[in-house]
């Protein structure tokens, strides 16, 4: 083997090593989570995770039922996505198809700025401003509801949806639009009957990625959703999400206790949820690139 061959090969190893770091990290996170979580299966037993009572500090026997946390996260995520879709998609259509270049130059940086606001600042805004508004708008007893969290999270998902959807809409071939206009369709008809359907898989992928961000968000929801661990599907009730539970309880939990291990099971559930959402997003995105 010549010197040159050795040199080339070593460079290749270094680069490949750098490129595969993230695979290693994901694998290690999974390993670590399971290592910490598994003893739970022996002591209280995995059956303890199936239940609607999350009450880890109790003199009446601790409850580790994940159901209220899962429904809490699901409720907030679905609501946030439903709120974010119209804003995100319409915003993307406007920027890609209607806005002039000057407008686009102003709009895009501001939308990206929203994504850059630290979530704890948004949470504070939610607690002081949004919660009282939602309380009086819907005549509720308390403004700390799933809806309040969902509105904040929608704000965080919109920039993701806009930038990826816009990309998808802009990459629709010009010929489609020209053909539609030549056939006598007006601009609005062309946008909503031709361009948007053609970009649909990209738009769906952007929504899924936005959802991925929403599921994992912690600080904003811990401050505004009230964190009451009960099973509910009403947007006007307080909910406790999986992320908020980990953040609130991990700091004080004694190592190696059942409570500690239960928190790792929440982590696993969360990881599986985001993994699944991202997987679907990637699948959809792939099919749209191929089309």
């Amino acid at each position: 083997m010549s010197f040159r061959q050795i040199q080339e090969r070593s460079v290749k190893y270094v680069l490949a090593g750098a490129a595969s770091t993230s695979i290693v990290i994901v694998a290690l996170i999974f390993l670590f989570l399971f290592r910490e979580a598994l003893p739970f299966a022996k002591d209280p037993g995995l059956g303890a995770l199936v239940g609607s009572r999350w009450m880890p500090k109790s003199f009446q026997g601790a409850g580790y039922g994940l159901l209220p946390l899962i429904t809490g996260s699901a409720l907030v995520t679905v609501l946030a996505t439903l709120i974010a879709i119209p804003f995100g998609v319409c915003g993307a259509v406007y920027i890609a198809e209607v806005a002039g270049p000057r407008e686009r130059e102003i709009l895009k940086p501001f939308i990206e700025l929203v994504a850059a606001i630290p979530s704890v600042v948004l949470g504070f805004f939610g607690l002081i401003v949004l919660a009282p508004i939602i309380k009086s708008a819907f005549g509720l007893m308390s403004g700390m509801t799933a809806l309040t969290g969902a509105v904040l999270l929608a704000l965080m998902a919109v920039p993701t949806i806009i930038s990826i959807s816009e990309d998808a809409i802009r990459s629709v071939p010009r010929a489609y639009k020209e053909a539609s206009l030549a056939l006598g369709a007006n601009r609005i008809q062309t946008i909503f009957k031709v361009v948007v359907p053609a970009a649909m898989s990209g738009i769906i992928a952007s929504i899924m990625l936005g959802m991925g961000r929403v599921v994992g968000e912690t600080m904003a929801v811990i401050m505004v959703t009230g964190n009451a661990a009960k099973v509910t599907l009403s947007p006007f009730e307080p909910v406790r999400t999986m992320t908020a539970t980990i953040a609130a309880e991990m700091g004080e939990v004694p190592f190696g206790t059942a409570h500690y291990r239960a928190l790792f099971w929440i982590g696993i559930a969360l990881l599986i949820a985001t993994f699944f959402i991202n997987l679907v997003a990637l699948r959809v995105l792939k099919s749209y690139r191929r089309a």
Partner: protein
Amino acid sequence: MKKAETEMYSHNLRTTVFCVLVSIAVLGCGPKQTSTGDTQGASATGGEISIKGSDTMVHVVTAWADAFMKKRSDIKISVTGGGSGTGVAALLNGTTDVCASSRDLSEEEKKAGESQGLKLSVTIVARDALSIVVHPSNPVNELTLEQIERIYTGAITNWSEVGGANESIVVTSRESSSGTYMFFLEHVLRKKDYTQNALLLPATSAIVQSVSDSSSAIGYVGLGYVHEAGAKLKSVGVKATPDAPAVMPTTETVLSGAYSISRPLLLVVAKEATGPVKDFLDFCVSDEGQAIVEESGYVKVQ
């Protein structure tokens, strides 16, 4: 051509797998080597004291630290909150010198300390009373301990059941990492579970915010916070039994023992206090230190 391509591909794959394995080996070894060494890291010899724990006590501990550092410029004190449980965990893990706790140590924590060879020593440095607070417009002025228990366990859900308006009660509480949460659970709820409808809020200031914002909310906060919140909150008088007189939480009623919901505030160290840490503990219980306690809205030890 085709063959060369596939060979190249499989070669690359082998490279990747190899690198992944090497990285796993390297990263996997790391923590094991360090885990034996550095658990008892923090010490108080360098003229620096770290204090961590109860959010309730952050006010008064910071005031003590400021006053103490003015007198002893050679000592630096850092104060952080996080909850009593967080503080005790940090003390046991050796990441803080002093733990501020608004509750007694649990049996589990004492055992964990013993098994690590630590001598946990507890000093009562102040007293605190929990005020039961409601919105200023709420007509309810007094509650019995039993009524409070039933509200927090979910047996009473409407203000009309305790002499108020026909509104459902919004129960607010601290998160379970809080010493106040545990104290309330043990001494007011008498170890019954909180209602699942209780809002668990991440900080006392969030309780103040939501009670001052909602006419139907009830919450519990330390005496110091009531001072600060002023007219935004209303404390209710507490009756030990249905026939007993209602007692408002004040310095006098806490000291005399007439007010039912009060507790000692503690500073805990992991080994016999020496040097700067001992000086600081002595300062806290001195007349000067106790004057600071009163200024901060808490109650003196004696």
